[in-house]
């Protein structure tokens, strides 16, 4: 049980580190700390 927990934590930690590093360098990465835009800066949506 202890061994399983140790290995599980190692695998989760490894995947977390790789995922965050890849997301930081990838051009298609998702921004995690995006703040909501203030209403005054929002662009009006134009009808097509």
């Amino acid at each position: 049980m202890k061994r399983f927990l140790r290995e599980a934590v190692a695998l989760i930690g490894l995947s977390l580190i790789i995922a965050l590093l890849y997301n930081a360098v990838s051009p298609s990465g998702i921004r995690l700390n995006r703040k909501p835009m203030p209403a005054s800066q929002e662009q009006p949506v134009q009808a097509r």
Partner: protein
Amino acid sequence: MASVIVVVARIIIGAIFLISGLAKISDPARFILTLREFRLFPEVIVPFTSIWLPWFELIIGLSVLVGLLHRTSALMLACLNAGFLAAILSVIVRGIEVDCGCFGMLADMLGLPDMADMKAVVRNIVFIGLCLLISFSRSKVLTLEHYICVREKQR
């Protein structure tokens, strides 16, 4: 004979999750939309989950395939699949028709059905069975762990 079945199960499960992880990593925007469509997670954790989950699938899939920490990885895959199963059942019960997002853009490329329906439920149950088989088997045939043990003994 039992060892052969475990090796075949490892190849099937490992390859499926490796490919599934790669397909999701290559198109993160699509995966984030799929997670939102499920309406299960709070918006705060959706971006984080969409970044981490594909890599988690890829790493534990690779681990099962090569046979390094494969028993732990298989047990974690069984838990992951149980989570997917619960998510799919919840959208079926709520009557929401969504793409299950299991294979990302690969499903479109190959024209595979990828809806969150009863077929996906059955597929997940089969995956859970195979993962538990790998996890509870003590077979070390064709594993990297076995190779490392042999090398250690030779020294």
